[in-house]
């Protein structure tokens, strides 16, 4: 049955919403367990019906292909980890309510719909379902002025971006006479590539996409939202939705508008260079780790765009590998911030990491892995991700861009090193944190961070997996 996992997750989310009403605070764990079981169930359903070739359902609205199923599995996994990490944090702050998990699950449904979208309408539907869930999650801490402000900014800017995307899509509809992505692709093949309406629409679509990705110059919301949102929400926003944003780019830009690559390539090039530059340089100036990681995410989106702008299947595969690795790293890094926070204390200053190695050498080591992986230092997974995207642009003779990218990577290494410096080289201060995180969270966090190292012998397998997933679409 097509869309069985989507239907399952959606029904379960509705059911949990109702069940949660009848639970006392002490039995809230039931909602949590149900949410996790939902994700596991969805994974089983997806694995069961794993598509080996591309097929569509609901008159082309919905696509089932290896790309969609692979990305969905990644989304379940990331959401699962995000839920594990956030539980203790929410409980300490009186936010341990079923709505968090329900909104999270609705977000997952939105992402699943985006990933499988074959039609502009389903694409938009999925995107808005995700965005609305995220707006609400950011505002989850009602009495925090900072969170409310972040939610407001996110909502207003997000709405503008959605409007831009929608406007662009309507232009494309005007030029091609269809909302179905496959049909749009065919129609564009028959049009001249400098059709003014088409290009006009394309510019708006790219603007909307860049906003959703958080790429410069549409990045303004990222630091404020990452910083203002409760950390448990930030870690959700910064992981799985990036994978969904990749799917958005694949479906829309590659699936639908690949013929226009000569037009969008230079736009993405500018965005990539700006993102890597702005992200890496501004991250240096931050003393708040959430803001720093937000700028780092902007720079990572720049690297990710390198893979896309090469406009080759090799590049798309590389970008997919990159975004998956990034989501895992980001999840781990924010997970660490969550773990080090405790009731009434947010470990969000870089200073809070001082002397971590003296008290918790194991946690410091995990964070070291995460930071070096983000910096792209071998043998961690972050290196292979950078290697792949850079080779994909050298392949299309953009050697200068590769040089620019690696130089920005060096600038970026500085602020990751600074975190390591705080943890390893500085002494503990009075206010230093004493994490008392739950055991389950530590285990999962260890798995999360060690995966970046343990993946070493299987990098080839994962790269093959990515390129097989991409094959179906291009």
């Amino acid at each position, binding site marked *: 049955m097509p869309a069985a996992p989507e239907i399952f997750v959606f029904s379960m989310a509705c059911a949990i919403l109702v069940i949660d009403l009848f639970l006392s605070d002490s039995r809230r764990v039931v909602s949590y367990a149900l949410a996790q079981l939902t994700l596991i169930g969805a994974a089983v359903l997806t694995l069961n019906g794993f598509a080996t070739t591309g097929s569509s359902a609901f008159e082309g609205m919905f696509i089932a292909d290896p790309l969609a199923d692979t990305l969905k599995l990644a989304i379940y996994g990331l959401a699962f980890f995000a839920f594990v990490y956030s539980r203790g944090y929410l409980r300490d702050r009186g936010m341990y309510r079923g709505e968090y998990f329900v909104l999270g699950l609705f977000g997952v449904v939105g992402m699943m719909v985006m990933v499988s979208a074959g039609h502009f309408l389903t694409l938009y539907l999925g995107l808005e379902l995700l965005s609305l869930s995220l707006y609400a999650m950011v505002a989850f801490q009602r009495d925090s002025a900072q969170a409310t402000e972040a939610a407001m900014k996110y909502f207003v800017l997000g709405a503008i971006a959605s409007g831009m995307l929608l406007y662009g899509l309507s232009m494309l509809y005007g030029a091609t006479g269809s909302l179905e992505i496959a049909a749009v692709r065919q129609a564009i093949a028959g049009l001249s590539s400098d059709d003014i309406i088409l290009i006009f629409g394309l510019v708006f679509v790219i603007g909307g996409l860049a906003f959703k990705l958080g790429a410069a110059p549409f990045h303004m919301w990222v630091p404020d939202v990452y910083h203002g949102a409760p950390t448990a929400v930030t870690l959700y926003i910064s992981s799985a939705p990036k994978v969904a944003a990749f799917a958005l780019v694949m479906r829309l830009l590659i699936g639908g508008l690949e013929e226009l690559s000569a037009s969008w390539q230079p736009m993405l090039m500018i965005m990539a260079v700006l993102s890597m530059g702005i992200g890496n340089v501004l991250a240096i100036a931050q003393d708040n780790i959430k803001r720093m990681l937000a700028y780092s995410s902007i720079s990572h989106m720049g690297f990710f765009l390198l893979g896309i702008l090469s406009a080759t299947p090799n590049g798309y*595969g590389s970008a997919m590998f990159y975004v998956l690795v990034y989501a895992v790293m980001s999840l781990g890094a924010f997970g660490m911030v969550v773990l080090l926070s405790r009731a009434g204390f947010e470990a969000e200053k870089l200073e809070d990491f001082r002397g971590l*190695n003296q008290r918790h*050498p194991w946690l410091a080591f995990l964070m*070291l892995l995460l930071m*070096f992986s983000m910096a792209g*230092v*071998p*043998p961690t997974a972050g*290196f*292979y991700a950078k*290697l*792949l995207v*850079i*080779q994909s642009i*050298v*392949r299309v003779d953009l*050697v200068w861009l*590769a*040089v620019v990218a*690696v*130089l920005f*990577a*060096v600038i970026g*290494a*500085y602020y990751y*090193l*600074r975190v*390591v*410096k705080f943890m*390893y*080289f500085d002494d503990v201060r009075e206010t230093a944190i004493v994490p008392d995180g739950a055991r389950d969270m530590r285990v999962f966090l260890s798995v999360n961070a060690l995966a970046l190292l343990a993946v070493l*012998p299987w*990098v*080839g397998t994962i*790269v*093959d997996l990515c*390129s097989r997933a991409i094959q179906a679409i291009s």
Partner: protein
Amino acid sequence: MMLADYLLSLAIWLPIAGGVAVLATGGDDRAHVARPLALAISILTFFATLPLYTGFNPHTATMQFVEDAPWIEALAIRYHLGIDGISLLLILLTSFSTVLVIVSAWIVIQKKVAQYLAAFLIMEGLMIGVFSALDAILFYVFWEAMLVPMFIIIGLWGGANRIYAAIKFFLYTFIGSVLMLVAFIYLYYQSNSFEILTFHALKLGLTEQVLIFLAFLAAFAVKVPMWPVHTWLPDAHVEAPTGGSVILAAIMLKMGAYGFLRFSLPITPDGSHELAWLMIALSLVAVVYIGLVALVQEDMKKLIAYSSIAHMGFVTLGFFIFNAQGIEGGLIQMISHGFVSGALFLCVGVLYDRMHSRLIKDYGGVANRMPVFASFLMLFAMANAGLPGTSGFVGEFLVILGSFQANGWYAFAAATTLIFGAAYTLWMYKRVIFGTVANEHVATLNDIDAREAVFLTALAIAVLVMGLWPQPFLDTMHTSVEHLLKQAMTSKL
């Protein structure tokens, strides 16, 4: 499946796995477990590298002890290892030095012992990996991964200015390496392979060669280090703990030089010839100018660090005059400098552990209190100055001989090192060791103990054997050097 087929993998992964095991021993209350364990692993690794020498066939330039398995097939990246006469000696130097470093840390390091020892063991594996990798990406992974433990070593156990030094060290080397990575990827798209040996045979245009040469230069020049990108080295050395300095000087610097031999000369022979003037000029600046800089240092470690840069200038000079004496002299100089600079840093460590000062002016008349130590230091100082009969002489002599064939003026400038080298080393020796007892701290010094005697004796034997009987070293590398020279002299255009 024979163990002999996997000797290189064993030499790489045994210390890495051992390092993890040492790390797992936990906090400083278990240091009495961590120390013997680390020593046992380093000795085992040393014995694991010995069959590489005994089983090595010096009459062929093909790679030996080859291991080859697919790794990332989408990009044709392979787990491909193998050694020739050039890398063999460096691997032996690595496994030998690591044992000494671990012995030297026995008492000195009391803070986070397990982490310290583990970092050195892991680094040993990675360094052996660098010298035996035959796949460019595999090489790069080992090359870069090494920065992580070294960064931690400098920053965690270093002196007052350690954090600045650690970050400078990391960023300098990182920026050089990423350009090399781009060059690798470019070569991959020219040859559809990341095999270093395929790169050797690849035809390239002159502009390409020059650009690739410059990218390699960025990576290797920083590591060597060559003037003017050498400024990280004195900082890193001064702030690193003794063991860190030894590994830096004895092995890490050699990686840059090794890179020239493995990558620059054979892959871009025409680029190398085109830019040989630059390399020779930079090398001579290092020899002459840095020699003068060493003369005015007040800190013993800084002095030895600058002396290292000057000696490495000799090595790169030898490589870029393109004759067998030059390259062989450069290689001998590399090995010898590994022993001598390692020994000098250990000697400074011996003094530092007693006095907690590295400043020359705090010493004087040490010979009165530490006669045995003074004799050891005498030998190493003489070797550093290039006295005949010590290992320092052989390399310098060969390089000067080689540069005479290229141009008499090169030889003239290079030979000034015999004066400067003697001047800065012996002047330091005089001020520290001779004279009357300078102050009451010196008056309380005790001579070296058995543990210190062990590693100084081992190095003294190495220095003398290599100085008096260098033939086995030359025989091991000769065929490989001839092959390399042929590659470097064959135009690819």
